[in-house]
């Protein structure tokens, strides 16, 4: 085998010599590397982006839960920014985000920016130490455009990590205005009125509610929205906060009361599940399809967040307006005019502090982005720099106004704030058991036991 060794030595030399000679054409770099249009042509329409600077060939990876059409709109929302700054923002959406972000962070391969769908996950990732605190420019934007409630949700242990992105208002009740007018049903102003209305509708022969908890591996979450809405409205924000922080046990009588109020509506075979089946179908009906019978008048009401507007039809053949095919009212409180809403939102956290990443993160926390994205339709933001007129529909305009109204009590979706084992685990599966027949006390005590010590 001496031959092989004799090849090896010259080969080694070749490698070393190659290193030494690589400088041969070092100076003759042609001007091709300048990004086309990065200087002259960019000025037009790029004034808004001048502060972010320009970057040649920079790339920023963004990872999130947003998929499909929503992802396309997201890409569209920063297209102009990309053109003006030269940063290529590469978005990757995954339905497995919640699990995969853990894998990637632990594996040492995090994205540059992650769009967290809930503060709980943000907090747990921040706990690993790999998430970076928000840069000053982002913190300044957050100070300017968001209320303290919202900033707090992006703060973990006193450090501000992530500015909010989009928002959704939960607790809407969808209905078909024409059907209601025909039957003389009035939008209820208190929860008691809602109960009465439900009974009235059931007597008239129409099934009052359609409900669906199905959502793949996240099955059960639409149920948590019901419970959270009722806890907030029946017992107020303080009890709500205590409940989420586990200062009162999960099976506290106040929570049980809220749950039973919900159960009176959706576990009553007379009241559900219009156009789909009986109570047991709630657990398997996909949340995306659950509300559709409202259009046919097979049920009168459907409880779901503002984003459900986009679910009514693929081609906008359904008009969402007070006098249109379908409209919604916010689930009322115990008294009329008590504005308290729950909602959700995304937060943008960074794993890199490269200049281009900071630029993108700053842009995403700005009013420019909020207006750009909201005017593309389908979503809203709690950004105070957002012009409600940009919202794509009357419903979203009213939702923006609700969010921006200083009188509104806003609370984040509770299950998102609880530890993952509960908020993305037993709370979901507990509600699935609950609508499948388990009683309130059993389910609540099971969830209570699963709360991590």
């Amino acid at each position: 085998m001496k031959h092989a060794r004799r090849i090896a030595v010259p080969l080694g030399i070749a490698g070393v010599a190659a290193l030494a000679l690589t400088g041969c054409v070092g100076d003759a770099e042609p001007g091709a590397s300048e990004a086309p249009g990065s200087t002259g042509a960019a000025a037009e329409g790029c004034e808004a982006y001048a502060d972010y600077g320009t970057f040649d060939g920079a790339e920023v990876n963004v990872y999130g839960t947003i998929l499909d059409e929503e992802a396309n709109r997201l890409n569209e929302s920063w297209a102009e920014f990309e053109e003006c700054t030269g940063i290529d923002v590469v978005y990757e959406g995954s339905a497995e985000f919640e699990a995969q972000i853990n894998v990637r962070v632990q594996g040492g391969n995090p994205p540059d920016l992650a769009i967290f769908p809930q503060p709980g996950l943000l907090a747990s990732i921040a706990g690993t130490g790999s998430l970076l605190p928000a840069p000053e420019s982002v913190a300044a934007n957050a100070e300017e455009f968001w209320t303290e409630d919202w900033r707090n949700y992006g703060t973990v242990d006193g450090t501000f990590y992530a500015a909010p992105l989009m928002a959704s208002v939960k607790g809407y009740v969808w209905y078909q205005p024409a059907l209601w007018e025909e039957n003389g049903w009035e939008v209820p102003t208190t929860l008691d009125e809602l109960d009465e209305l439900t009974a009235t509708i059931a007597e008239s022969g129409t099934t009052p509610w359609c409900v669906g908890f199905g959502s793949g591996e996240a099955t059960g979450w639409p149920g948590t929205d019901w419970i959270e809405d009722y806890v907030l409205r029946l017992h107020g924000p303080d009890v709500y906060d205590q409940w989420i922080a586990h200062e009162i046990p999960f099976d506290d009588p106040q929570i049980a009361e809220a749950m039973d109020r919900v159960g009176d509506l959706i576990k009553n075979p007379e009241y559900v599940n219009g156009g789909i089946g009986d109570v047991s179908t709630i657990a398997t009906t996909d949340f995306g399809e659950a509300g559709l019978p409202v259009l046919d008048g097979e049920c009168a009401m459907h409880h779901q967040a503002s984003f459900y507007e986009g679910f009514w039809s693929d081609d906008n053949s359904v008009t969402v307006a007070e006098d249109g095919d379908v409209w919604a009212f916010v689930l009322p409180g115990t008294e009329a005019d008590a504005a308290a809403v729950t909602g959700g939102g995304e937060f943008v956290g960074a794993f890199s502090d490269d200049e281009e990443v900071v630029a993108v993160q700053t842009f995403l926390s700005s009013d420019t982005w909020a207006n750009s994205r909201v005017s593309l339709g389908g979503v809203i933001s709690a950004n105070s720099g957002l012009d409600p007129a940009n919202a794509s529909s009357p419903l979203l305009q009213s939702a923006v106004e609700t969010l921006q109204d200083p009188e509104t009590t806003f609370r984040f979706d509770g299950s998102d704030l609880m530890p993952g084992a509960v908020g993305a685990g037993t709370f979901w599966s507990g509600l699935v058991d609950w609508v499948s027949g388990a009683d309130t006390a059993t389910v609540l005590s099971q969830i209570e036991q699963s709360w991590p010590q």
Partner: protein
Amino acid sequence: MSSVAFTPDPEVTPDEVAPAVRTRADRVKRRLTSPWATIAALVIAVVWTIPTFGLLLSSFRPADQIQTTGWWTFFSDPQLTLANYSEVLFSSSASSPQLGEYFVNSLAIAIPGTLIPLVLACLAAYAFAWVKFKGSSTLFVIVFALQIVPLQMALIPLLQLFVTFLQPFQTALHEAVPFISERQYLPVWIAHAIFGLPLAIFLLHNFISAIPADVIEAARVDGAGHGQIFFRIILPLAMPAIASFAIFQFLWVWNDLLVALVFSTGTPDTAPLTQRLAELAGSRGENWERLTAGAFVSLIIPLIVFFSLQRYFVRGLLAGSAKG
């Protein structure tokens, strides 16, 4: 020892193997010839086919009909459309799935993802079967037991290794040859190779160890080294098993989602079809019209592979291990 592995086959069997009893095999009809058997076979075949058939039929039905009526209503009310396929494959609108690119990725992942473990497993299986060394059995048992190490638990450590050692290399490759994107298939290939190896070694070992010792001894007496025995005797004789396993490995890689989720980048640069289909399924509940058509697009290549390599199944994986 069964005669199967050495039944002459003009393409794959070398001359030195004695011809066996094919002619008699043809003469003797030994099926369990009863009408009941035929009926039972038919029933199984139909039951096994119906779910796929229903999906196929659904993929050609208009979207609103898929949601509201069963696919069997097609027979009373035939309405077919190619709209689902044209949307999934060719639609230029930004929100369409545009599966073409992901299709290329699936191929680019599956071919090396099959070849690499296959070659390595052949080598290892030969060593376990025919090279005598200390600790051979113990090592083999360890490899066998590795089959059960759950993929999920191996993801994070492997990703850590890849990020530390493979990523600088990938970046360097991209800088040297800008043609090649920085997002590469390399990690996915290696991951598939690793996860496919234990089963591949186990199955191929079963076949290769069943080759009669006298054939190999004879070659050894003639002065053949391990390399020659491996190439001139083992590989040709084991070809049916290798081809069979290739089919299975190809199918597993092609259909994998979990490895792709972790090791591909999720962007159109490297993400395979399955990842795209999972996204399609995810966002809006059950988008049946897209899912049905998409599922069939992803089914085409595995079926072609199966058809083209099917004749090897007749001789088959493990056929050689059939002994009393």
